[in-house]
């Protein structure tokens, strides 16, 4: 990934001293300092702070956590075509405030990101408007229609980092098989949404007592496992690198675990929403909790947390999906699905870690090192030579996420008024401050 952000020459040497360094790549946690030069980590010094180079900008972290910035593999950023929901500018500000230093944009824009020109457009718009890195994911199939392969080679050259049809699953197994086989030519990562659209139908809730009592149409969890099982068989056939974008069901965890045990090149993600919330949150027909896939029963949530700790689940994503007021001020069945999540991804993950649901090192690994590794990005590590995409965070600080403070253009958060534990004090992108807390 090329750094498209301009570096202030006067600020080109900085040191973060008195830091609680946590490198998720190794799990090592130690007091020390980070030396930044020209947007890269020039050195990581453990133990006593070294003498800062002359003219360096010294930041005293006062013992706060310093870790790599978050790489969010799944965010809808609005451009082009849905600027009323989100823009690269507003999304990047929200991201920076939430400790995200790289956003992977989904290709479900208008027009969809299925040509090198659109990838280029996004990168240029991001260079001029975004304060964090934006790495476009491009379409798996032309027009996201699930029929013809997109130009993976040309799209990669233009700067795409992975291939996905966003929230759409490729129903045709032959198309999917060819997409996975063809992606191998470029060692490209195929990120697939695993949902049998026919089985889901117009379902908006998980089948069970709650959905039945509320009179909501149910979307079986088997829609996910059926598609996932098919895909895993295609991985065995083709050998391509495959990433299940967002699993939500305990049985999906078992399928992924088995595939990994077999040695297949398979990884998967989970949304922070499915880790932190469960189906009961939709009670009262609260449309801000209407998500796709829908929120699941508590036993699924617990299984997902366990799988995250085990490493069966590789990454956590925000699944940032801004929706304007009108799309949510509707009866539950008619309201748009989705939630914003850039500002809350890390704080909610830290809350889970603080509650002991999952370890801090694993949470940070799933938010930084693992996604950066899957996408081949030069960030996500506290190591010499890595991009100086860093966060300084107080992992325990309690605060309340107020609607007035939301930076995203859309305000559809399921965590409004929620107590957070863990706050980003400073976000550095290529060594430059993208966010500094008040």
């Amino acid at each position, binding site marked *: 990934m090329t750094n498209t952000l301009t570096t202030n020459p006067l600020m080109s040497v900085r040191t973060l001293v008195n830091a609680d360094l946590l490198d998720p790549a190794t799990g090592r946690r130690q007091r020390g300092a980070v030396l930044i030069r020209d947007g890269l980590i020039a050195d990581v010094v453990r133990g006593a702070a070294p003498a800062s180079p002359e003219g360096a900008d010294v930041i005293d972290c006062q013992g706060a956590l310093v870790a790599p910035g978050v790489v969010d593999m799944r965010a809808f950023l609005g451009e082009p075509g849905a600027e009323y929901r989100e823009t690269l500018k507003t999304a990047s500000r929200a991201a920076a405030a939430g400790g995200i230093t790289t956003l992977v944009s989904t290709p479900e824009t208008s027009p969809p990101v299925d040509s090198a020109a659109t990838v280029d457009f996004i990168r240029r718009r991001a260079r001029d408007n975004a304060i964090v890195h934006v790495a476009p994911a491009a379409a798996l199939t032309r027009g996201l229609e699930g029929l013809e392969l997109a130009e993976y080679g040309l799209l990669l050259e233009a700067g795409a980092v992975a291939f996905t049809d966003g929230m759409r699953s490729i129903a045709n197994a032959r198309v999917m098989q060819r997409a996975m086989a063809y992606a191998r030519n470029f060692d490209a990562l195929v990120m697939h949404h695993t949902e049998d659209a026919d089985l889901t139908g117009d379902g908006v809730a998980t089948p069970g007592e709650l959905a039945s009592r509320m009179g909501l149409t149910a979307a079986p969890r088997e829609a996910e496992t059926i598609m996932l099982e098919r895909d895993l068989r295609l991985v065995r056939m083709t050998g391509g690198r495959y990433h299940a974008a967002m699993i939500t069901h305990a049985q999906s965890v078992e399928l992924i675990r088995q595939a990994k045990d077999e040695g297949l090149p398979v990884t998967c993600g989970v949304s922070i929403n499915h880790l932190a919330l469960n189906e009961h949150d939709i009670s009262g027909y609260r449309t801000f909790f209407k998500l796709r896939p829908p929120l699941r029963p508590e036993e699924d949530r617990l299984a997902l947390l366990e799988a995250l700790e085990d490493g069966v689940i590789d990454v956590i994503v925000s699944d940032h999906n801004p929706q304007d007021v009108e799309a949510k001020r*509707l009866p539950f069945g008619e309201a748009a699905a989705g939630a914003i999540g850039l500002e809350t991804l890390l704080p909610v993950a830290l809350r889970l870690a603080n509650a002991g649901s999952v370890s801090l090192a694993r949470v940070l690994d799933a938010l930084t090192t693992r996604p950066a590794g899957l996408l081949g990005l030069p960030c996500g590590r506290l190591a010499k030579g890595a991009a100086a995409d860093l966060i300084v965070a107080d992992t325990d600080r309690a605060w309340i996420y107020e609607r007035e403070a939301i930076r995203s253009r859309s305000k559809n958060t399921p965590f409004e008024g929620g107590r957070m534990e863990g706050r980003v004090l400073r976000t550095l992108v290529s060594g430059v401050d993208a966010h500094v807390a008040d």
Partner: protein
Amino acid sequence: MSASPSLPAFPHRHLLGIEGLTAAELTTLLDMADEAVAVSRQVEKKRATLRGRTQINLFFEPSTRTQSSFEIAGKRLGADVMNMSVASSSVKKGETLIDTAMTLNAMRPDIIVVRHAQAGAVQLLSQKVACSVVNAGDGAHEHPTQALLDALTIRRNKGRIEGLIVAVCGDILHSRVARSNILALQCLGARVRCVAPTTLLPPAIERFGVEAHTDMKSGLKDADIIMMLRLQRERMSGSFIPSSKEYFRYWGLDEEKLAFARPDALVMHPGPMNRGVEISSEVADGGRSLIREQVEMGVAVRMAVLEAVAQHLPDY
């Protein structure tokens, strides 16, 4: 509070569903409805409880019987009743439910009676208006006045509800009538069974505390009341069941299947009926059918509900 001292207390401003009501509250409404039946059978049917009040029947789904039942109920209580069928008006032009609610609210109605195709829509609307809201059916969620009129019909014919076996049969999955009836009848002490083909039973239905049956013979055994549900036409041809012919053969109520129930079992249907699909004409028009009485009870129950919620209207 404008509660006239003669009215029994009902602590809710809206009636959004049966869920959350106590047995005592349900019984209060049924007792009030019994009185309304007496009033409705007189030559002079008018009361003045709602005189000067404005009632709007806001129907986002077409309905003949529920809407006219609410209209007559409101008029018998002295309210000015306005019917608004939104299926054909501004909502088609893109106005949202909430916009419609706020517009109507500005006209200062006292009671809005709402039917909408989406579960939860009536609750959503109730949060945006200052008046009382009565749910006349929201998606597959609830239809509380139907459950009340069914309970009233049962109580008047059987003398009680407690201990009765009630078999609710047919398209439970899509039925708000079934949900409200399950809640109301269980709350009042009945044992409820759900009888339906597997594709029309909601997931985890047994978690409602009902017995689920897929076979009419076992489902109707010893039943005191058989409550048939309407099967929507669009669900008859292959999507949930193969055909209306097959449906009638296995789940339609005819004399033969009626014989599985108790000899004194009574038959109900919320209407409108599909004769020859879920019920045969002989049964629908037979001596054990309560179907026409249900319609009469509908007006009485709606009078009771309107009076009950109107106790909470301010007197300005």
